C-alpha cells in the first residue's frame, strides 16, 4: 500500500520561481524576501493572568514578552506584540510535531496558546527605498523616530490584518518584517512587488 507523501508547500514559492522578474536596479532599492516558515505560536494571557504570563515567558525566553507594540529579540526567539495581553512567539522547532505543545505546558493556567505556524507567512521588506515603498501600502508612520528598531504594530494592508515590526538595520537601510495571513499572501505579495517595482526590487526566498 502506498504511503501518503507529505510534501510541504513553501509559501509563495510558485510566484517567486514562476513569476516575471520585476525591475532590477543595481543595487535594488527594495529587497523582498519570503522567510522560511518558523514555529509561530499565539500566546493570550488569561483573565488577570498577564503578570503570570510575563513570568512564565521570562523563564522560557530569558526576557519578558512585549506588553506594548514592540518586538523582543531573545537568543532563540522573537516575541512580537499582537494585541493587548497577547503576543506571538517566532522561533525554530521540529517541523512536523504539535508545535504548540511545549508552550501549552509552559503557560498552563496562565495563558491560552494557539499554533499559527501555518496561518501566517513572514515577509521581509528591506532596502534604501523600503519606506517609500511601504508608504504605498501601510498607513503607519514608519520613519525612524516614530518607528524605531524593535517597534511593532498590528495594522492592515489592503484591508487585511498584518503584524509588522522593525528588525535592526542592515548595511543597506531599514529592515521590516511582516506576518500576513497565509490565504492572503499571494494577493499581498503582488501588491508588495508592484509597489516596489519603481525602486528596483530584488525578491527571493530565505
Amino acid at each position, binding site marked *: 500500500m502506498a504511503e501518503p507523501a507529505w510534501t510541504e508547500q513553501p509559501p509563495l514559492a510558485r510566484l517567486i520561481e514562476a513569476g516575471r522578474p520585476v525591475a532590477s536596479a543595481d543595487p535594488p532599492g527594495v529587497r523582498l524576501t519570503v522567510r522560511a516558515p518558523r514555529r509561530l505560536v499565539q500566546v493570550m*494571557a488569561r483573565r488577570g*493572568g498577564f503578570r503570570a*504570563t510575563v513570568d512564565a515567558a521570562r523563564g522560557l525566553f530569558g526576557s519578558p514578552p512585549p506588553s506594548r507594540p514592540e518586538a523582543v529579540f531573545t537568543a532563540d526567539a522573537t516575541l512580537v506584540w499582537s494585541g*493587548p495581553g497577547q503576543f506571538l512567539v517566532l522561533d525554530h522547532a521540529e517541523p512536523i510535531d504539535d508545535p504548540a505543545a511545549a508552550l501549552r505546558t509552559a503557560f498552563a493556567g496562565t495563558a491560552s496558546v494557539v499554533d499559527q505556524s501555518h496561518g501566517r507567512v513572514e515577509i521581509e521588506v528591506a532596502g534604501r527605498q523600503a519606506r517609500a515603498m511601504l508608504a504605498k501600502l501601510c498607513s503607519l508612520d514608519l520613519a525612524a523616530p516614530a518607528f524605531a528598531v524593535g517597534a511593532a504594530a*498590528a495594522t492592515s494592508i489592503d484591508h487585511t*490584518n498584518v503584524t509588522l515590526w522593525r528588525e535592526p538595520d542592515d548595511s543597506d537601510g531599514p529592515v521590516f518584517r511582516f506576518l500576513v495571513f497565509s490565504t492572503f499572501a499571494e494577493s499581498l505579495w503582488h501588491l508588495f512587488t508592484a509597489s516596489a517595482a519603481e525602486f528596483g526590487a530584488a525578491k527571493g526566498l530565505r
Partner: protein
Amino acid sequence: MRITCPFCGERDLGEFTYLGDAAPQRPLGASGVPGPELEEAFYDYVYLRDNPAGLLREHWYHGGGCRAWLIATRDTRSHAFQAVEAAPGAGASPDGGAR
C-alpha cells in the same frame, strides 16, 4: 479621521468599525424574569438610541489592528475625539500589566 487606540496609538479611521452608542447596557436575560418587562428592556437596548448633538460615548472596534473594542467619546458636531478607552474586557484585563 484619526482615532487614538489606547493600545496601538493614533491610527487611520479605516482600521476601525463603528458600532454606536455605548450607553445602553444589556439587560439580564436568564437571571431576569422573562415577560413583557424584560422584552421592553431588551427593546430599548436593541433599538432605542439618543442622537445627541455633542459628546457621545460610543463603541468602536479596532478590527484592522489589535482587535480591541474601544469606548470613544466623540463630539458628534465636530468629530473631535475627547477620549478613547479600552472596553472593560479588552486584552487580559482585569490586570494592570496588560493595560
